[in-house]
């Protein structure tokens, strides 16, 4: 089971290391990690995807709550939430497949952000599954390089999260 954990923390040096250390110190792998200040510049949001069973992640969530610099922890798994990820994908092209790659990109509302005579760099924004799907479809053309941001997420509830 993959958990999406969203943590509001004080925007101070060392806080990210504290949060990440707590999880990695227990032997879990953080698959994706994002951190940036929120609309309140004293508060940062850390979004992580962490694989692990529910019981273990419940404990991790409680432990995160214990950290002095942690303001609030949300385990969004099982809740309704909006998640987005951005990826830059460099695809190998030849004269023959250039247009088919561009066509595929437009179907995914992706954007070609750089053109080289041997490659196209495509920017795609969407849910992680959508990006996985796109990658699968362009794989046959030859993927040169990929950079993904990992998930950022917000709950769908009316209130603050």
């Amino acid at each position: 089971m993959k958990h999406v954990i969203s943590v509001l923390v004080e925007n101070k040096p060392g806080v990210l290391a504290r949060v990440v250390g707590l999880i990695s110190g227990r032997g879990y792998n953080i698959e994706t990690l994002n951190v940036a200040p929120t609309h309140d510049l004293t508060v940062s949001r850390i979004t992580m995807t962490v694989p692990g069973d529910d019981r273990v992640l419940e404990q991790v969530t409680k432990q995160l709550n214990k950290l002095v610099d942690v303001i609030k922890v949300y385990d969004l798994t099982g809740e309704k939430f909006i998640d987005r990820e951005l990826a830059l994908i460099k695809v190998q092209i030849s004269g023959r497949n250039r247009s088919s790659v561009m066509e595929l990109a437009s179907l995914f509302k992706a954007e070609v952000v750089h053109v080289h005579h041997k490659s196209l760099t495509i920017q795609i924004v969407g849910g992680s599954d959508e990006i996985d799907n796109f990658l699968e479809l362009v794989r046959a053309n030859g993927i040169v390089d990929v950079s993904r941001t990992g998930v950022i997420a917000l709950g769908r509830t009316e209130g603050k999260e």
Partner: protein
Amino acid sequence: MRTGVECLIDGLKKAGVKTIFGLPGGSVLDIFNKLYHAPFEFILARHEQGATHMADGYARASGKVGCCLATSGPGATNTVTGLANANMDSIPLVCITGQVPTPMIGNDAFQEADITGITRPVTKHNYLVRNVDELPRIIAEAFHIAATGRPGPVLIDIPKDVQRASTSAPTPDAVDIRSYHPTTDGHPKQIARLAEAINKAARPLLYVGGGAIAGNAAAEVAALAHKSGLPVTTTLLGLGAFPETDALALRMLGMHGSVTANYATHHCDLLVSIGARFDDRVTGKISEFAPKARIAHIDIDPSAISKSVPVDIPVVGDVKSILRALLPHVDSGERKEWREQIMAWKEKHPFSYDRDSKKLMPQYVIEQIYSLTKGEAVIVTEVGQHQMWAAQYYKYTQPRTFISSGGLGTMGFGLPAAIGAQIARPDKIVVDISGDGSAQMNFQEVVVAVEHNVPIKIVILNNGYLGMVRQWQELFYKKEYSATRLGQAERGKNENIKTKKGAKYLPDFVRLAEAHGALGLRVEARAQVEATLKKAFTHDGPVVVECMVEPEANVYPMVPAGASLTEMIQSMA
């Protein structure tokens, strides 16, 4: 305007610090220069690990926040074991370390270590002070965080230039941290549920841990037990939270707990944990722990709830206030049948050893310490067999009279912790019960006891082994005593002792004590125990009593690791 060092001194004064344990060094010279005139008792330890354990022992014995001070780099890294020890046992202390000047941080400067990075997993919180304006607030916060909620160690790392810089920032009167608000009051509905569960239970059991002592809730535990006829077992760190001389006391439970406590845990229908954390040394095999019971758990730390054992009735908050709120809702009762069953177990299975043995049995020494101090000493221990015998054969009736490293199991803890405890409690006899292995881990601190005339009594049960490991090797590794024999004779071939002929035990603890300026006494036979201990306890100064005990005595009962509490080995027979 005040310098960083002046802010620190003022902050420590405001926090009520009376005693500081530590060692100087290059990065804290400015602090030491001011300490020369400051109104604190400064205890010069000989190793920073010793200083942290002293602060720890001081905190455990006094209930106040312990304070220690070390320089950057090796000074700071030497505190790590002490901080981890305090963290595992939830002991409030503030550790101040010096750091190289801010512009040099990260440059591998002389005596630089990323101590906030290193201690992150073993402290409740830590700070690297980057700006002197933050320092007054940080000092106040550190003491607040160390002492409130689930207590723990806090480290403040202060670069040398920050110590020298000036600020007009005042020391705050109150602390308000946006992200830190520990829950203190228990939820009334959960308290009502717990009261109902207690009232309905036929075979309830209170399982009391160190949290009841940290939360100063011993009186409330006793009131609850007596009102409703609830038998009480404690963890190692819970010893003293309930008088072990009381008819309702079952003594300690777990790996080396009493048969009665372990049977009662197995057969109870309601287990009420009060400030205990279901450590694996207590539970044994989790799936067979208290199999017939509903489990209630009172704890200030929400993450302690259902961490290892699923809990039916969680009550999060301060133990003392929860018990006070609970008491009026609990019915009076005797629970005659359950108590008769417990009395029968108690009579049949007391802690026992070969009392007729002509050899000097370690358990006998502990019983003599109990008898001579009338159960009123502060007992501090190292870690190992002697620790468990100290738990089994001395009866604790007051909180903060048993001081031991529970969670981390730190050999070398006892001696410096005893110094801290004795400074906190000058009115008490403080005895460090030690093994010969543990005694060699921080013996250098005896000098501190001598210099400051801190009259601790160190009783070494010398069995020539790292005894607890040897016991495991005896029981589970076919008596292959690999690297556990401390005397040179009979060492394993792989250990390559070159001069076995006429080999003696090293060191000679009596001479070692004398070399440090303490009184050294040796006991070689049972008949010498009482008189020697009397001499030690009446001597006005630190004493080392080396007792040459039966080498292969074992700690029983013993629940093998991972077994159920009912699967106790009760003797070799």
